[in-house]
């Protein structure tokens, strides 16, 4: 590891490749070597696609030599195992899809590949993205590189751990209630969840369709801007993707935070927030203020309704989305079924883990005749109230800032017995999903050696504001550069 390529950000690597300091094959080889030696401790990967990666790196090098390099030419990254990748195992962290080889590529997989990205492998995740600790994965929990006894958060825990441990410079993730931002916060990485409809959901295995959004986990906001520019944009295969112009996100980074109106939500600092975490976040806010940002208090009266609302809407949609896993056409199939009912019951009973089953049952219940109005319909109404809170706040501020997660990384096994405590982990992030807003987490300090994240939320299509604010903050601090000791 004389070159230390693994410590560089995507942007730095792009420049190095362009200068010819090293080849994509060399870079890819280095990282595959790191995965080999370090992943056994982390369990961040479900699949490592070494051969395919080296072949892709080779052809990227050839394209560059021929003067045909795309914006991500030869740059390695990893995909959360929720994205369908042609001819490669796509498990979604579930026994149900333990042997599922996707026959097609997700739109974002296609777009990143077309820009020249080299895929090192598929990352571990909570089963069907249902979890906040990566402990619901059929393939075992992912360890947090900052403390191997701790959870990296979830559901994009494998992606976050891989990026934090310098096994890959960047990863894709998905965020339904905080699944990119919370693990980013808990691993000291940058996580961006774009506006709902900004990035195609085609080929991303659905958890809760009206909340799911694909995004990235990186080690800098500049890297997130680079990747988002490639991933974003209308896709005719996803009716909920929106035909909205894709700006130059990298160009948006350079403006200072001077005059930026930053909303601070009073309720974010109420009970439930770990004191030291709160102090780190306040410090971050002070840095922004000292550099010209204008801090304003904002009120989000319906914040406490976001978790219960989410846990009606998301399970309802998941109960329907996961019906296709029935053992008939693909995925896990029970052996020697006696009849159709037995085939269904055992295939699903064996294929799904406890948390997935819990949510399917909750979702089935809230959609049932006689309960629909009281739960699902009511939750949709509350969802509008929460969205209204944001809209009102954004009349006076450009961005809302606060903690990403109430605590730093918690010990594996600590919260597995109590789903409600686990669910409360996403209290600050869920609102953005319910309202379809873009959100981001960037490192802002440490508590007892574990990273803390600063959470930013912007109005619809406000990715440029998020990236600018986070990038400027990163220019003023060093938190995002910190590397876990065992993975330097």
């Amino acid at each position: 590891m004389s070159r230390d390529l693994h410590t560089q950000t995507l942007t730095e690597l792009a420049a190095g490749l362009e200068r010819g300091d090293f080849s994509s094959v060399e870079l890819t080889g280095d990282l595959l070597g790191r995965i080999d030696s370090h992943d056994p401790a982390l369990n961040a990967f479900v699949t490592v696609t070494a051969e395919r990666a080296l072949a892709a790196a080779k052809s990227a090098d050839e394209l560059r030599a021929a003067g045909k390099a795309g914006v991500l030419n030869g740059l390695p990254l990893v995909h959360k195992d929720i994205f369908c990748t042609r001819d490669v195992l796509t498990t979604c962290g579930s026994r149900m899809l333990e042997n599922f080889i996707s026959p097609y590529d997700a739109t974002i997989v296609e777009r990143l590949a077309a820009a020249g990205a080299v895929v090192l492998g598929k990352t571990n995740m909570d089963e069907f993205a249902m979890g906040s600790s990566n402990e619901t994965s059929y393939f075992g929990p992912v360890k947090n590189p900052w403390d191997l006894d701790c959870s990296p958060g979830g559901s994009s825990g494998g992606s976050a751990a891989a990026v934090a441990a310098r096994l890959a410079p960047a990863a894709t993730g998905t965020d339904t209630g905080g699944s990119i931002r919370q693990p980013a916060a808990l691993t000291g990485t940058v996580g961006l969840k774009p506006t709902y409809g900004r990035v195609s959901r085609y080929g991303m295995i659905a958890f809760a369709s009206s909340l799911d959004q694909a995004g990235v986990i990186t080690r800098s906001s500049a890297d997130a801007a680079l990747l988002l520019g490639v991933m974003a944009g209308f896709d005719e295969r996803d009716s909920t993707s929106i035909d909205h112009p894709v700006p130059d996100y990298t160009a948006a980074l350079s403006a200072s935070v001077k005059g930026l109106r930053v909303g601070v939500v009073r309720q974010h600092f109420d009970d439930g927030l770990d004191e030291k975490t709160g102090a780190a976040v306040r410090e971050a806010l002070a840095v922004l203020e000292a550099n010209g940002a204008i801090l304003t208090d904002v009120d989000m009266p319906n914040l406490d309704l976001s978790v219960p609302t989410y846990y009606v809407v998301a399970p309802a949609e998941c109960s329907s989305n996961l019906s296709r896993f029935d053992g008939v056409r693909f995925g896990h199939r029970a052996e020697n079924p006696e009849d159709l009912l037995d085939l269904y019951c055992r295939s699903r009973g064996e294929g799904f883990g406890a948390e997935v089953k819990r949510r399917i049952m909750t979702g089935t219940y809230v959609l049932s005749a006689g309960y629909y109005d009281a739960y699902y319909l009511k939750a949709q109404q509350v969802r509008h109230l929460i969205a209204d809170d944001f809209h009102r706040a954004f009349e006076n501020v450009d961005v809302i800032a606060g903690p990403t997660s109430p605590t730093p990384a918690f010990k594996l096994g600590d919260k597995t017995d109590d789903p409600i405590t686990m669910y409360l982990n996403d209290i600050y992030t869920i609102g953005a999903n319910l309202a379809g807003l873009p959100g981001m987490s960037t490192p802002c300090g440490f508590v007892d050696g574990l990273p803390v994240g600063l959470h930013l939320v912007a109005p619809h299509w406000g990715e440029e504001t998020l990236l600018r604010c986070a990038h400027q903050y990163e220019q003023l601090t060093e938190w995002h550069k910190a590397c876990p000791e065992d993975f330097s």
Partner: protein
Amino acid sequence: MNSAWEVVIGLEIHAQLATSSKIFSAASTAYGAEPNTQACLVDLGYPGVLPVLNKEVVRMATMFGLAVNATVAPRSVFARKNYFYPDLPKGYQISQFELPIVEHGELFITDADGHEKRIGITRAHLEEDAGKSVHEGFEQSSGIDLNRTGTPLLEIVSEPDMRSAKEAIAYMRKIHTIVRYLGISDGNMQEGSFRCDANVSVRPRGQEELGTRAELKNLNSFRFIEKAINFEIERQIEVIEDGGEVVQETRLYDSVKDETRSMRSKEEANDYRYFPDPDLLPVEIDAAYIEAVRETLPELPAAKQQRFIDEHGIREDDAAILTASRALADFFEDVVASTQGQAQGVANFVIGDLAGALNRDGLDIEQSPVSAAALAGLLDRIKDNTISGKIAKEVFDAMWAGEGTADEIIEAKGLRQITDSLAIEAIVDKVIEANPGQVAEYKAGKDKLIGFFVGQVMKETGGKANPGQVNQVLKHKLS
């Protein structure tokens, strides 16, 4: 029918929309392909795939809405109907539930007393068809063919306005005619492109409250629908008269045994857990779109029927028959446009000889071996007295058999009508001479015998004498 009971029938008709690709995917909808060759990843419900609405179905549903004087909703929403079945890959069917695309329509049928009767159309909504399970050729297992999965359907739900199986059939035929006129469905019942479920109940005549209904499924021909409904009416009356109660249930019609059987009761019915499909945006239709679609509407059966009466002077019942299918009506008008003959004569020929021949050979009007132009050529020869109406039938049969045009056949077979009065007089004389008895009777006042004499002359001439001339000459000679 037992007159103490009133029958109440509502129909749910599924019309397959005639798009070339599926409602939410690009796969082909062509019928009869090898199993599972026309199902793409979206149809198969693969992980991660998403539905994209085929805009054609919106246009077609809008056309239907306008044709039945309904409201086309400015905003309609696709919902998921959740249930597990092997032929339903996603575990839910995408349909419309609370907000359908078409509501509050109507059409008019003729009831048993010959009066016009309004049948309300509650709604029509878009949905995807399921695949089908295949049991033949499998042991200890079933096959699944997903070719039909995702085929677009328009489900047309009537009000419970029909009071007999005959009315139900009349309504269904009207809908069948309309969708084919609009070109939005081929209406092919054998291939399942047009099928129907019937909700049937009975109540004591005069009672306001509706009786408990049974839903009859699997009705795929007009004949079976009528038989199934009539069987079900008798069954329900019998149950009630025997002191029992009709239970709400789904019943399957068995065409072999001509009976309905219970399939599942209300208690066994699924809770479909409908909710708006988050993968699809609401369908929003503005007034300009509706007007643009209205511009493309063809003349509809009722209007065409009235025009045939007003413009062509066709008898009302004939106009109804001719306008039952757009193709037949078009054929008729093509003939009228290119013949010198009277329109009613054209109607008689089309409804009589032509329809008879088509029916005999099992052909549609589009497949008629005698084209509209060729038929016009034949009718022109009647008009100009080259042949009689009777000979025309013989010429038509030869045309049907592909022996040539009317003129060619008349020439080749020497069928030209005898109009030479001297020739006709000679034959008349011969007939009078050969039948002295009848002549005496006729002269004694038995006028009806004129028909006998005409017949004899026709026989002598092989039907080629001009009947009007023969009549005239006979009357003159016998007076």
